[in-house]
């Protein structure tokens, strides 16, 4: 072949071969006498194991004035336990190459561990110590508080994170836990003490609400025996569920600009309250969102990015929680097209509600969600997280077996009904972090509402 020769390659799009069967990794569930649940998915592809220990200690159960205590408690677990300080614990994990992390989200706290399977017993022994006998040293609790306050300070100059927090603040009522940041705002975090951490730990870290999920190179019998030996003599019942009202909302439309003078781009959030993860409309709603803004080839992304070139990317999502999490469209657009971009988003939301999507759009979304299913579970961490989702939201045990057929069963009418029920144009909250001098007038024109202008500090 010489340079300049004409290329010749097949021009016709090839047809797929026969698909090979796929099953989500087989898993088993056991419950120990003290209430600890053990879920094990043995996958022996590589000599790795992930363990996720879920605890009923998420931010949703925090008392007013104690926001941030769930995250602080989870992080502080790693700072000392069973006579070892944080440095020693870290060294113990890292010397065997293990990754360990502890954090709290809205629904639960989780300690996650990934290690070579030969080190599982050692590593899980350390996890036992930090879950059951944490010491919460005063100095380290204070340091972790300072680190959270530092994050919050940084947020004031970080448009993406700031827009996310400001959006939650704009959707939920000020009495609702969901209105404030998951890890607490500056005022609440500053007031937290070691005693608060200790009380939260004592009230919430109880085996009746604990699940250990194993995935990777381990057998069910070995995982259960190890859990029994490390956690079998731990006692305590399931703690109380989150109170009502954590998802109380503000009603009506709102347009708010969070001032960032001279910003070259506007970080845009448009949305309202959504619905809980465990709801009968889940599949219709998820497919509806995929068509609206969940995929690269979705309406919102193709419109804002590929047709108009307004943005690097635009998407929409339901934030699935136990209570009513938010639905939000997010994008970042050049300041001078902020109005037109918001206008296109509003049009796309309306369009989902007025006409049924085409069969072609439906099949793009459903064949994607159906086909990509095995690709989502290639790693021990991804498998463990999927199982955690099943536990946290009390999904049926056959959820992963029926997932693909449920996706394929969604119809254009189902999508239309989901759009009519769960997209609410008259309740849209629009929050833009950007330059008020450039965007206020544009937003007034396209929304018919004069935006409120606030500063980042007013909320933090």
């Amino acid at each position, binding site marked *: *072949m*010489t*340079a*300049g*020769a004409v*290329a010749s*390659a*097949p*021009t*016709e*799009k*090839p047809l*797929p*071969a026969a*698909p*090979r*069967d796929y099953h989500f990794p087989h898993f088993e569930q056991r419950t120990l006498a003290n209430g600890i649940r053990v879920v094990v998915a043995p996958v022996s*592809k590589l000599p*790795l194991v992930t363990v996720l220990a879920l605890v009923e200690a998420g931010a949703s159960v925090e008392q007013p004035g104690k926001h941030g205590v769930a995250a602080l408690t989870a992080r502080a677990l790693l700072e000392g336990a069973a006579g070892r300080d944080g*440095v020693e614990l*870290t060294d113990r994990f*890292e*010397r065997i*190459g293990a*990754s360990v992390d502890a954090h709290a989200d809205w629904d639960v706290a989780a300690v996650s561990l*990934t*290690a*070579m399977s030969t080190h599982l017993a050692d590593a899980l022994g350390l996890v036992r110590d930090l879950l059951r006998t944490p010491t919460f040293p005063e100095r380290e609790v204070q340091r972790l508080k*300072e*680190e959270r306050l*530092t*994050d919050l*300070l*940084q947020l004031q*100059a*970080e448009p993406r994170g700031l827009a996310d927090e400001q959006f939650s603040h704009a959707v939920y009522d000020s009495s609702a836990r969901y209105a404030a940041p998951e890890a607490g705002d500056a005022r609440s975090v500053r007031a937290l003490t070691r005693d608060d951490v200790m009380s939260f730990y004592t009230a919430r870290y109880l085996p009746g609400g604990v699940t250990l999920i194993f995935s990777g190179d381990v057998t069910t019998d070995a995982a259960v025996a190890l859990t029994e030996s490390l956690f079998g003599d731990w006692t305590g019942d399931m703690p109380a569920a989150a109170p009502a009202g954590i998802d109380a909302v503000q009603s009506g439309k709102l347009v708010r600009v969070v001032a960032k003078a001279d910003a*070259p*781009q506007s970080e845009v959030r448009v949305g309202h309250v959504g619905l809980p993860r465990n709801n009968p409309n889940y599949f219709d709603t998820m497919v509806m969102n995929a068509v609206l803004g969940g*995929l*690269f*080839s979705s309406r919102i992304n193709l419109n804002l990015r*590929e047709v*108009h*070139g*307004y*943005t*690097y990317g635009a998407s929409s999502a339901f934030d699935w929680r136990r209570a009513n999490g938010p639905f939000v469209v997010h994008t*970042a657009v*050049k300041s001078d097209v902020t109005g037109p971009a918001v206008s296109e988003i509003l049009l796309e939301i309306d369009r989902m509600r007025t006409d049924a999507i085409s069969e072609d759009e439906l099949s*793009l979304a459903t*064949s994607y969600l*159906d*086909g*990509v*299913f*095995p*690709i989502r579970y*290639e*790693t*021990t961490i991804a498998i463990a997280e999927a199982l955690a989702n099943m536990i946290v939201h009390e999904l049926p045990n056959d959820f992963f077996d029926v997932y693909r057929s449920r996706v394929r069963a969604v119809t254009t009418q189902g999508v239309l009904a989901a759009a009519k029920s769960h997209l609410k144009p008259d309740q849209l909250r629009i929050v833009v972090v950007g330059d008020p001098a450039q965007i206020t007038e544009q937003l007034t024109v396209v929304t018919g509402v004069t935006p409120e202008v606030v500063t980042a500090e007013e909320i933090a």
Partner: protein
Amino acid sequence: MHIPIETFRLPNGLLCVLSEDHTAPLVAVNLWYHVGSANERAGRTGFAHLFEHMLFQGSANVGSNEHFEFIQRAGGTLNGSTWLDRTNYYETVPSNQLELTLWLEANRMGYLLPAMTQAKLDTQRDVVQNERRWSVDNQPYGTWWERLPALCFPPQHPFHHSLIGSFADLDAASLEDISLFFSTYYTPDNAVLSIAGDFDPAEARAMIERHFGGIPRGAGKPPLPEMSLPETFGGALREVVADDVMLPRLFLAVRSPAFGTNEFYAASVCGAILGLRKGSRLHKALVREQQVAAEATAFTYDLAKGADLLVLDVTARPETTVEQLEAAVAEQLDLLIENGVTNDEIARAVTLIETAMVEALQSAGDRADKLSMFATYFGDPTVVNEQSARYQAVTTEQVNAFARKRLVPENRASLIYVPREGQEANESSDLAMAEAP
């Protein structure tokens, strides 16, 4: 950890790498083109990346947006990325869709130009300029990844200029540039094609030959200028940037040996001892003990040509001044030079690196990308299977020798971000103190 690897080359020069794994019915396709921002001509910064966007705009037999649509409809994921010296394109799909993916990749390698239009170029220019605003200009510290290479590589060096590019240079890009860049660099003899996952090797090979075999070899690309550099900067480099940030942050880079060289592994282990995870020296000393930093990490760029960079990335706590932050970091480097590292520290670093490598090889997409990387840089993908042994062979003497030679003050480049308003406040308080009796 050993990956099965089969390698062959088509007559047109395309290097092909196959790695079977039938755990799940999925397959990853990954193409590395050996071209990146380093190959851009003067006045065209950002072009390699803009060009990458154009490769998703269709080709002779594929309509605009159809590349994404076909893969997503097939149940696959996809993307591409541009780096200083390479550009990659990748898909992971259900294994029965392998041929679709190869067809799409071959179609754009062989028949891109008929689909290129001024309108598509203009839209993608807007998209890329918005990407720049999003990831660089409207992000605190966002300019670090163009300022740091600019500080560390001399002006004429191919790694000196911005990868994302300037607005003016992006504005200047034309369809003629597209055509020239394509015919020069997007040729089978300048690419590696890797397939990892669930496939039959004989079938895959036949598909590759069918789809890529007819694409002609290129005329050769212009060589990059001399990439090698002295072992050190030859003097401390320093740039202070007043920016829209809340806290000072120091990026301290040292010039280090190129990726894949013997000395690289010592440098990589040294970096891990300094700044990989919470058991590292910087985290223990600066974040935990002294509490002068909110975060402290270290990493290598892994540049395989000329010289690499080992970078310490340290963000100050609110009450820490830039001077305190710099002094605290310098102290750690000086201590390491003076006293060396321990066997325990090396063992910790190597174990963490090895476990991370195993974790990274779980997904077919990551495996295919690593194979393409080693094949592109070293002509041999089986180098991936040697990495563990290379790390295990690192000794304290090697790390200490690296430290004594490379962590020295004349090989430190400091890029320092300071808050714009904070800086003013500090200046005025200094003034007030000077006036006090």
